[in-house]
């Protein structure tokens, strides 16, 4: 089940400095959703640490799970503020709808449900967090809706309501030719079209021009975590800068934003690392 090379890849990435056990375990956890015994044994073997230490760290922190988790994580806050505003009733409702106890995972591995003691968002209470999305002032009647939403994917962007999402128009950093493709709409906006190559494959690749949306379309299906090379379809120069992704250290792909500034996106498929520099401060 576990891919040995994936673990080795993560270990390789953290090789630079010693004492990176926490970040290694964090990467493993986000990759597999949990820390398997084989993965931990492999980490012990490769880093030369004792398995006892690794197991101690993995069981100490609640952020690490030794059991497989579901695709979606629902956390209900039961801190004092959320508790008095009805957190337990919401936890109960979710428990019933998913038919699992707090800390459990549904048999189809879709949902993991847990209660947390405080999310530090007491003013929004009672708070429920689903896959990193905060739902403030929850009620039991909203539970069903949120579970349904989580299934379809909360990363789907609501263009009309979300102010953090805005379209950008970009051009090639080398020939300054616009990369916008009005014939290829994504999220109802013209897409950003580049040529992409990886392994021996070569083809077009269109990204959503909405800053905050991660929708893409591609001629060739791109495997997750593949580092792509992107080229300008006009001057055929490779779009590559010196920057490294803040999330995964893969190279960043720079593009000029019309109106001034540079947007950089991570070349690794699936990684959401990006930087936006509009002349002023940097937005990550």
């Amino acid at each position, binding site marked *: 089940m576990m891919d040995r090379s994936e673990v080795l890849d993560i270990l390789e990435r953290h090789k630079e400095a010693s004492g990176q056990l926490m970040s290694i375990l964090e990467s493993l956890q986000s990759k597999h959703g949990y820390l398997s015994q084989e993965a*931990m044994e492999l980490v012990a073997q490769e880093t030369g640490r004792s398995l*006892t230490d690794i197991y*101690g760290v993995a*069981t100490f*922190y609640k952020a690490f799970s030794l059991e497989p988790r579901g695709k979606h994580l629902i956390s209900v806050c039961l801190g004092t503020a959320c508790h008095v505003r009805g957190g337990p009733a919401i936890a109960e409702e979710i428990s019933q709808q998913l038919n699992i106890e707090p800390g459990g995972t549904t048999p189809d591995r879709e949902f993991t449900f847990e209660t947390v003691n405080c999310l530090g968002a007491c003013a929004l209470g009672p708070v429920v967090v689903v896959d990193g999305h905060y739902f403030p002032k929850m009620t039991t009647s909203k539970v069903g809706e949120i579970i349904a939403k989580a299934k379809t994917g909360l990363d789907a962007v609501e263009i009309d309501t979300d102010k953090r999402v805005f379209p950008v128009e970009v051009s090639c950093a080398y020939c300054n030719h616009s990369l916008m493709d009005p014939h290829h709409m994504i999220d109802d906006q013209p897409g950003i079209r580049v040529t992409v190559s990886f392994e021996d494959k070569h083809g077009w690749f269109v990204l959503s021009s909405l800053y905050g949306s991660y929708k893409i379309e591609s001629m060739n299906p791109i495997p997750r975590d593949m580092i792509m090379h992107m080229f300008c379809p006009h001057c055929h120069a490779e779009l590559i800068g010196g920057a490294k992704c803040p999330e995964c250290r893969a190279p960043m792909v720079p593009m000029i934003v019309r109106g001034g500034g540079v947007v950089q996106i991570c070349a690794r498929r699936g990684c959401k690392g990006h930087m936006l520099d509009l002349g002023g401060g940097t937005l990550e």
Partner: protein
Amino acid sequence: MVTLHINGLQVSQEKGTTLLEAAQFLGFPIPTLCHMEGLTPYGACRLCVVEIGEGPRARLVTSCTYPVEEGLKVRTASRRVIKARKMILELLLASCPQSKTIQDLASAHDVKQQRFKQEHEDCILCGRCVRMCEEQMVAKAIGFRGRGQDRSIGTPFDEKSEVCRLCGGCMFVCPVCELRCTYTDPDKAICGGCGNHSAVCLEKPQFDDMMCYMDPCVACEIENIKEIKED
């Protein structure tokens, strides 16, 4: 050299010495449980607390981990220290009443009551075995797992360890997983066997005081005093 005062006595010690060592050098007894010569100080059991500083800034610190400081004023048996130690012993009794080590310490400190919910744990998480395994046996077969009330000691995944050599060092140093002293009623939290006037050694004269396993029991001496008085 660092000069400090322990219970009013001035003492000079090497830099890096702990308060515990300094107090023992002067002959002041400080009870310890998680401390063990040859293992790194750990400060887990808190039994070795002493009071440092003066006035409102006085505070309790574990003497086994606190290094000597120039001009420090230490009290090893102030009222506050004794109160804290008694409380710690009460809590230890509440979790592991079967330990002879803890019972002996409780007797020695005149602990007369145990006011907490009685449990029968088999570990007080003093970490002696963990340090023994790592530092003396260089094996690291066992370690702490989990946190808070779920904290436990054992091997990863509860599986038989590949690095364990079955040396038994962990059991040897454990103050809890030992045979309960035979004298007591197992349901009673405070055994008080050592304070009991009819200890085994008195009933069975074939055990002379050299063979007494209830050290630091003073039952026989109390009996002797009694006899002298009666005479």
